[in-house]
């Protein structure tokens, strides 16, 4: 498997791997490290990936085994039971479940960005900074040179608009 092929086929599966690792390990940072380890091993054995029929299942199974290795090692912080591992043992169902969840996340994200694009520039900017980038009001004040009252007022109006849009989407 070439580098470009690896980038276009394996790397987009990162969302699935991350979600599976988080479910098994219960920690976002540990899941991120586990996913990176799996990516490194996949890169080292990328020549063998060309012969794999279902790449997504293969990658998720590799992630699951890596998470189990981490759990067996002494350094894992989470109290882990066999049922947690058993819950991930049915790989086909798990793969389908993970895939659905990743797809739903991408859809909702796309929906929100679509709704944000309909907002005025100032409201869109404030919603992004406050809810997506999770910035404090003081930081926004400095960055946009606005008073806090103006910021709160503008954000409140933007939220009302988004709720209305979401309600309309729900009733559609």
């Amino acid at each position: 498997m070439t580098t470009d092929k690896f980038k276009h086929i394996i790397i987009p599966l990162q969302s699935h791997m991350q979600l599976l690792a988080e479910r098994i390990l219960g920690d976002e940072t540990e899941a991120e490290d586990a996913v990176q380890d799996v990516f490194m091993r996949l890169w080292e054995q990328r020549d063998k990936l060309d012969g794999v029929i279902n790449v997504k299942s293969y990658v998720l199974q590799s992630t699951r085994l890596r998470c189990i290795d981490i759990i067996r090692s002494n350094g894992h912080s989470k109290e882990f039971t066999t049922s947690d591992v058993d819950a991930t043992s049915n790989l086909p169902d798990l793969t389908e479940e993970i895939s659905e969840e990743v797809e739903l996340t991408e859809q909702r994200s796309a929906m929100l960005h679509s709704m944000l694009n309909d907002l005025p520039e100032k409201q869109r900017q404030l919603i992004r900074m406050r809810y997506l980038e999770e910035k404090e009001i003081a930081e926004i004040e400095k960055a946009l040179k606005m008073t806090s009252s103006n910021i709160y007022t503008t954000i409140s109006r933007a939220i009302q608009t988004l709720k209305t849009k979401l309600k309309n989407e729900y009733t559609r």
Partner: protein
Amino acid sequence: MNTPDNLQQLFDAAKRHQKDLSRQQKLSDLVDQWAAAEAAPKKSTKRRTLWLSMGIAAGILLMVSIGLRVLQPEPSANPGTIVAKIDTIPQSALPEPSSDIDNATPTTHDGPLHNQKNSTKAIAASSAERDIVQPLIADNENSVDNENSADKENSSDKENSANNDNRITPKEQVLPPTEHVLPSIEQVLPSIEQMQQSTGQMQLADNTITTKPKKTVYERTSSRLVGSKRTSVTRRQATDDGRPLLALTNSSTSITYELGKIKF
């Protein structure tokens, strides 16, 4: 499509999706680095091999040079080095080589040695008090050599003086004569005669009179056994004001002279 129950779910999904995109970008960069790292080792290995071989070669050269230096004898221990240095003196600066080195006149910084001896004998012969001067003449022959070796040492041992004679080697004679040759005793003689007139019984005691005006006074005492009587002869040369001062003391007679500010 599932519609979210509230707006917060949309924000959570958007944040998660944004994080995933960021992680994918990081992984993409990592893959690029891994690909570059796999391509780079060929060059780095070549460079490393080159540097390693150069280092080994330099180390071998260093060890060989150190070994050669250890095996090579010290250059200063080679007597031929001195000869080579002498050979570097231009021929024009060297004096005419003597055909008979053995008959060559020994030369010292005080002038020709035989001239000093002969002039001393001549002065001694012309002296009125021969009995005092006679033992001194024999001692003066030794004092010539003592002048060459150490002026402030006593010249009581004749064997040492004889050894000093042997130090005059033909090689020293070949060396170019020094420019600062002291005047011979004949040139200094008029002033000595004036001193004899002024000091009465004072006699010429040493032929090593120096013409340097500010020479410090020093004395030398020679002691010898003549028969059953030990005779001590003391010679002093030059006062602080540059005036030559000749003194002779015979210890057997306990004669003491006082000249100027110096008390003997």
